[in-house]
């Protein structure tokens, strides 16, 4: 009887200790694992450009994963394949010019399925220090699923199809003045595109600025393909971001591009919206678009 009591007591204590210490250990291991991941993936780290502030040290950010995709209209009957180039140019106070570049391959079939192969060599002003991270997204509105393929691990993360808005509210402060102007039509990469420019002006003193800040965005939209073929965004704080779609081909891409390869293992993934998830009304298309 005494033995039973002792054994029970030990089991109870061991369970309590295991449960309590386990969680701490888990978080510690997760942190360690993430740190190791950052270290091991030195080639996948992004190097932040000096923002021009004197004494600012270089630092890196590492891509952990892609959590979710948002937006994107389902367009049927307009297949294409193309390449997209994103370039960010930032000019520092001393005149130094910093340029980052990222590329992507785009495919869309007649049913509206999308495939996006993206090399994250830069996110905005944060440039690649090593090898770019390659991500492949297959968006299948028919199956109501989005797959993120990871060529390194052979995993296909499946999430629910989401054509909702961006989780971050893009709207500028109410105090900012907006000016929108039509730029007419022009041919870009063999397709006709309509241009629109918006200028956001943040008044002086609004955000600590001693003079007005102008953020200029320009978008060239193809009605035929229903995609943006050229966009420019100029913000004095981040530099100038240019997005161009080139080598547009109107053929139907191979069907296999929109299927998860057989050697990939499909895993369920989900995104935690959190308290900061904004669900504003879907941005409406500007007049004339």
């Amino acid at each position, binding site marked *: 009887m005494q033995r039973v009591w002792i054994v029970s007591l030990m089991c109870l204590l061991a369970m309590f200790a295991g449960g309590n210490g386990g969680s701490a250990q888990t978080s510690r291991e997760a942190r360690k694992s993430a740190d190791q991941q950052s270290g091991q993936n030195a080639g996948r780290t992004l190097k*932040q450009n000096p923002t021009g*502030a004197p004494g600012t040290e270089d630092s890196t950010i590492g891509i952990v994963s892609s*959590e979710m995709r948002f937006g*994107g209209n389902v367009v049927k009957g307009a297949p294409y394949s193309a390449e997209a180039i994103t370039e960010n140019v930032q000019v520092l106070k001393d005149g130094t010019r910093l340029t980052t570049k990222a590329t992507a391959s785009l495919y869309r079939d007649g049913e509206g399925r999308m495939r996006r192969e993206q090399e994250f060599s830069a*996110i*905005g002003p944060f440039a690649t220090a090593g090898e770019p991270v390659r991500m492949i997204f297959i968006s299948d509105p028919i199956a109501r699923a989005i797959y993120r393929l990871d060529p390194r691990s052979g995993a296909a993360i499946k999430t629910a199809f989401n054509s909702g808005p961006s989780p*971050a509210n893009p709207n500028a*402060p109410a105090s900012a003045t907006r000016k929108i102007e039509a730029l007419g039509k022009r041919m870009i990469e063999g397709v006709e595109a309509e241009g629109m420019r918006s200028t956001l002006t943040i008044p002086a003193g609004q955000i600590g600025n001693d003079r007005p800040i102008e953020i200029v965005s320009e978008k060239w939209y193809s009605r035929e393909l229903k995609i943006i073929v050229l966009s420019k965004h100029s913000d004095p704080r981040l530099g100038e971001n240019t*997005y161009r779609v080139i080598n547009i081909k109107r053929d139907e891409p191979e069907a296999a591009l929109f299927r998860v390869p057989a050697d990939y293992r499909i895993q369920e993934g989900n995104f935690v919206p959190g308290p900061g998830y904004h669900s504003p009304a879907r941005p409406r298309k500007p007049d004339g678009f």
Partner: protein
Amino acid sequence: MFNRRKDHEQEDRFNRTIQEMLHEARMSEAEIDGIAGASDLYERVQARIAAKQDAQRVAGSDRHGPARLRSFFLSEWLGSRPWPRLVFAVTFATLLLLALAIPRWLRTTPNAPQQVAILPQPSPTQTAFTGEDRTGRIAEANPDKQTALLRAAASGGSKRVTGRRNRAAEEIVTDFIPLTWVTEATAMDSGQVMRVRVPRTMLHSIGVATNAAGADEFVLADLVVSDDGLARAIRLVN
């Protein structure tokens, strides 16, 4: 003393049980003596006991290491020696309590304070390229975010559990902080949210300052990146 009393109790119980069995069997004393006095009874009982012990030994040898160890631990070691048993239990319990108490004590010990603070408003002479300027933007644009950041990024603070199905870990996430603004007319409405590890030094450059002690540490964050490559917003995780 406790063991001696226990032995007496067991002996009494055994005698009572024997008496009850004899009563139920309705056997006379002579019959019982006859059976007990049989010449080969002792040898037969000894043989059966030996066979049973052999069978147990064979079964025990088939067990793997942990099972054998457990068997020895429970039956041989703990079962035969009361004092080591007590000492072991007390030592084990003490070690467990220490193992429980030390991590808690470390967690509550104020080491390097980990907190996120919004930088003060810049002076009017600062240019638009400095991090302070961005901070000012954030602070001015949405004062609620300051509170959210301070509350959420402070270590050991109240946690908001936002985990679902696959994400068992508790996550603290702040509101999204805009990095730039676009108008609805020119915004690209597709993109993705990327989980990144951001050094605190970078947080400083986008307007979220941390204490210098943890400058070399990484912080998890979610970046909203539209398909045109524009980093639109960031939020801190944990």
